[in-house]
């Protein structure tokens, strides 16, 4: 493997075999990753975008040596993760969203110092780095606070510091802003951008199901669904795939059974819908402008009321919808919504 590649996978697969008593008939295997090929050069901030259960975390677990692949190969920093996990660990660190690591009775500073010891960082260097990084993420005034007194956002800031403290060559960020408020997420995204821009030799693999996060941060993005990579390119190039299509976002009063309503209509390439604040949000990728009028008429016939209509440039979410045929759940408000695809 070329040393310029920070991460490489070849036909990487992971299949979970269920015990007989846990499995339904004919469903004794769950394919979490199916023959994934990836090449991530050193110095890239690479995004892995996909819904929950797409295989993002499985891929990260394999690359961080927490899980063995059942097929194919993966190399991190030129080292085979299955053959030599101990060597891989010298080059990596990881931060996960919703992480609750550390010990509540220790302060922020003490917890970070403890984790630094596991990387053999001497006390003086560790304390200097901790101080610097806490300043950057705005947690310096909490350095002496026991971590059970921290809010979720503060705790995640501490986790970020833990991940960056060891100055890893390759950093894995698994849904790092999951469940955080807007301000904290923004601070952490700015931190990631700044860290990477100042260290061109470092590589970051970020998994997220927040489209704007991938769009804002990543040099390249791979879209993953059901364990398969569906597309891999720069956000700009991915969005250019949809330059011929027309994209609309509509907000309407709640509609019953959108699939049946829109399925018979012509000119709709893809659509997704989600319930947001008691209303229905619809995303359409249309062949051309002519397809809009029948949609509006269908809404009217279903007693729905149009609240807003927006024609917009393609986003990564539209790319995702065009590839997968359904949208990503973007926030708690849309959790549990159903997505559909016209024939």
């Amino acid at each position, binding site marked *: 493997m070329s040393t310029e590649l920070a991460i490489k996978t070849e036909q990487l697969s992971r299949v979970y075999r269920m015990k007989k008593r846990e499995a339904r008939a004919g469903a004794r295997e769950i394919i979490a990753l199916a023959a994934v090929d990836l090449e991530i050069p050193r110095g890239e901030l690479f995004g892995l975008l996909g819904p929950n259960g797409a295989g993002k975390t499985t891929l990260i677990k394999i690359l961080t*040596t*927490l899980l063995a692949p059942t097929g194919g190969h993966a190399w991190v920093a030129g080292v085979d993760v299955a053959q030599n996990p101990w060597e891989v660990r*010298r080059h990596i660190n990881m931060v996960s969203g919703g992480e609750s690591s550390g*010990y509540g009775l*220790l302060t922020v500073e003490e917890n970070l110092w403890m984790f630094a*010891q596991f990387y053999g*960082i001497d006390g003086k260097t560790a304390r200097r780095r901790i101080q610097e990084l806490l300043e950057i993420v705005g947690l310096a005034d909490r350095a002496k606070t026991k971590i059970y007194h921290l809010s979720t956002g503060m705790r995640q800031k501490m986790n970020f510091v*833990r991940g960056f403290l060891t100055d890893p060559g390759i950093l894995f960020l698994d849904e790092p802003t999951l469940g955080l408020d807007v301000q904290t997420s923004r601070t952490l995204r700015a931190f990631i951008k700044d860290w990477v821009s100042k260290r061109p030799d470092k590589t970051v693999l970020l998994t997220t199901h927040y489209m704007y996060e991938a769009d804002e941060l990543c040099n390249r993005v791979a879209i993953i669904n059901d364990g398969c990579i569906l597309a891999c390119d720069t956000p700009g190039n991915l969005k250019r795939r949809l330059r011929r299509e027309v994209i609309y976002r509509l907000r309407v009063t709640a509609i019953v059974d959108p699939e049946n309503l829109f399925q018979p209509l012509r000119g709709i390439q893809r659509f997704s819908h989600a319930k947001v604040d008691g209303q229905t949000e619809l995303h359409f990728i249309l062949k051309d402008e002519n397809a809009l009028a029948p949609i509006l008429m269908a809404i009217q016939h279903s007693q729905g009321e149009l609240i807003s209509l927006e024609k917009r440039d393609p986003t990564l979410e539209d790319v995702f919808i065009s590839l997968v045929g359904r949208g990503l759940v973007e926030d708690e408000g849309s959790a549990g919504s159903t997505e559909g695809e016209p024939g």
Partner: protein
Amino acid sequence: MSPPTRWEMFWRTVIGRAYPRIIGAQRERSWLFFETLLPLLQVSAFVFIYRAIQAPPEFTGFVVLGGAMTAYWLNVLWSMAAQFYWEKETGNLELYIIAPTSLMAILLGMAVGGIVFSTVRAAAVITVGLLIFRVDIAIVSVPQLLGVFLLTLVALYGLGMLFSSLFLLYGRQAWHLSELLQEPVYLVSGFYFPVRALGFVAALGASVIPITMGLDAMRQLLFPTMMAQFHFLDVRIELGVLAVLSVAFLWLAKRVLRYVEDLSRREGRLTVRGQ
């Protein structure tokens, strides 16, 4: 800055992981009540039974010593063996595993922290017990006593490390192992009576738990007159067995830990929570 050597990383890890246990004990003072006074109640019950049946006064010493050593046994069961289960639930385990350090160093750090914490508890039980129940001791040999005590701890915590690797794989199921071992070992290891009372074969079987011979040898070295008629094996033999158990458990723990870590990685159990 040159990268740390394996040796440096190992010892930094030991110190790093011991730190929360030592500092945590200082920050949560409630343990003084739960870990010192409550065990003394159990010790007291046995003392009063022995007094009621007019057993020789040395038996009070046997009980106080056994009561003090329960601190280590409980620490090994619940804070060594079961610890990886907790670490998995809180998300610390995956951070331990992806770190370039050795899991043995993490376990050793836990052991060192646990020994420091439990020694304070054990010392408190012994001191209060000796003062309240006025136990007379006649130490035969301080170096031998220290040797037995240290070897008992090394073997005991080596056993704890071995158990902890099982928790990597089995999680909550291994919990029952700890529950299963706690009370029966009080009995078969002779925490509150000389183990020879069980008979030679039973005592020999119980000797796989290092505290069995450790307690017997320490009692011989603290209460030589009474133990002359109740001792299980000669102190030197017990020292030798404890040394063998120490090496065997540490070696086994290292091998089993590596094997179980690989197996857990293959089966995807390292990060499964609520197991």
